[in-house]
């Protein structure tokens, strides 16, 4: 009985039990046999998950990462990575992508924060808050091609707003340099999902600011400005910064919206990689691996910072 129990309960308990029972202690079960019997039942529930993620997430990514450091014949090389910097069209595409992602994250974060503060602390009626949160949930998932179509219908060359501005205010935005294919043109569009994403994430953080903190600060003689500078901003800062980084990664990988505006011409990294996969436009598959590797490094770094800031802010917002 003791022996059967120990087989079911694990190697750790096995020794305890066998010490209490002389007959088993004299002939201990071989540990290799015990583990080889136990492993399948212990891992059966998580096995599909690990097999799946290994085959379809980790290995394909590693394949590209390793390929980025290999020549076509499989020898180690740094040429592909160096070419990311030395080829002006590639380094330029990284630069444009980083610029668009950075500014859409910054503007989106501040705009989202302003709206979030307005609906949580601004004394607006309750329906405003719940309507905004519901809408934000929808809009943060409304990206890709349909978003581009909406903006073409609005601010395209014959878009409703373009025509209205031209006819009523005599203002031709295209003559003023507006274009979806410029950095700021894309940023204006990306804000449509960046701002709501910021609202969705930051509202719970603002809710976490306790009323008592304000009262405690007031009791100690703090002005409203001091309360914001010394309590609110330091507490919100990590989750704010963390969300900025999430927005950055979010914009950096986005491709469909930009693709709908321009087809393959626009020079941002995901579109560059898309053309490379579709037609080997760079005439060097290894370079495609390097571009993919560069994207992983940038979004990966961004997310490392995000997780770091997130854990820092969670200490306060329980």
């Amino acid at each position, binding site marked *: 009985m003791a022996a059967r129990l120990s087989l079911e309960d694990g190697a750790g308990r096995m020794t305890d039990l066998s010490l209490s029972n002389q007959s088993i202690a004299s002939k201990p079960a071989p540990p290799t046999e015990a583990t080889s019997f136990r492993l399948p039942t212990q891992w059966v*529930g*998580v096995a*599909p*998950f690990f097999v*799946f*993620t290994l085959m*379809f*997430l*980790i290995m*394909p*990514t590693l*394949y*590209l990462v390793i390929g980025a450091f290999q020549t076509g014949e499989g020898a180690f090389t740094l040429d592909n990575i160096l070419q990311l910097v030395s080829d002006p069209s590639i380094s330029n595409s990284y630069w444009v992508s980083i610029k668009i992602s950075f500014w859409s994250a910054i503007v989106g974060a501040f*705009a989202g924060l302003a*709206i979030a*503060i*307005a*609906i949580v*602390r*601004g*004394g*607006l009626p309750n329906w*405003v808050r719940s309507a905004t949160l*519901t809408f934000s*949930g*929808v809009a943060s*998932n*409304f990206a*890709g*091609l*349909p*978003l581009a*179509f*909406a903006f*073409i*219908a*609005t601010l395209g060359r*014959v*878009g*409703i*707003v373009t025509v209205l501005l031209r006819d009523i205010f005599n203002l031709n935005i295209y003559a003023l340099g507006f274009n979806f294919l410029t950095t700021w043109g894309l940023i204006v569009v990306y804000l449509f999902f960046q*701002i*709501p994403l910021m609202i969705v994430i930051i509202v719970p953080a603002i809710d976490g600011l306790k009323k008592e903190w304000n009262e405690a600060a007031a009791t100690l003689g703090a002005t409203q400005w001091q309360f914001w500078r010394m309590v609110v901003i330091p507490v919100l800062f990590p989750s704010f910064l963390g969300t900025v980084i999430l927005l950055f*990664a979010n914009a950096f*990988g986005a*491709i*469909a919206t930009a*693709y*709908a505006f321009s087809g393959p011409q626009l020079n941002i990294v*995901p579109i560059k*990689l898309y053309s490379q*996969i*579709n037609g080997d436009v760079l005439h060097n598959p290894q370079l*495609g691996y390097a571009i*993919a590797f560069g*994207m*992983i490094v940038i*979004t*990966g770094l961004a*997310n490392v910072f995000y997780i770091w800031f997130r854990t820092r802010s969670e200490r306060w917002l329980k």
Partner: protein
Amino acid sequence: MKSGKFWAWVVFGIGTAYFFIPLLATFEFSLRMRRGVHSFDAYQVVLGDPRFQATFLYSVIAAIFTIILGVLIVVPAAYWIRLRLPQLRPIVEFITLLPLVIPAIVIVFGYIRMYGSNSPLPFLASDLGASALLVIGYATLALPYMYRAVDTGLRTIDVRTLTEAAQILGAGWSTIIARVILPNVLIAVLSGAFLTFAIVIGEFTMASLLNRPAFGPYLQNIGANRAYEPAALAIIAFAITWGCMSLIQILSRFAPKSANRPN
């Protein structure tokens, strides 16, 4: 305080303008197909287009398979980690976050290289294989959302007691998961499912690079060649996203609020 409220309204008003002008303009634009009058012609043309029906149906089926695959992978893993292997939680959470770090285009690029027609696992050699790979890719994209939804659902039930009770009554593992655990986290699973649906239905990058006849590539094609139909499609896509999010909100009202006993 008065001025604070004033500025709150101003901010809210500017935000509302930014978000509603494009939606209203798109809607108005979509009604303009017939010269001089407002009509739903663009919607009629789109909905009557056999390619719309075929690609939309394809994407709906892909989304359903994605949800099934996601549930089959995530539910047992999340359950098992709560019950038996809590030490694996950080690793599994890290893995489920990876699809947010690795852009979709990079993942699908890896698939094309690893599972091409002359690889050991030639998914891309046949149409069915390529569609299976698309579903797999979508399940990967949805992994962060699915895992979080299911894990939140599991937190609200007492996994250990339910499992032991089922075991005492003689249930095997598949019975426990399918007939005890899954019904208890059904609402959480459905929330994850609708979010997955919203993400997958118009997805462009993976479907296009795997050369599948899905809704995303169809949208791209229409967007490049037509004037009024894209606006109608944008409104339809917005309505679908809205529908999915509303269903999640409605479902969350039925979800149990908190655990009676923490594990």
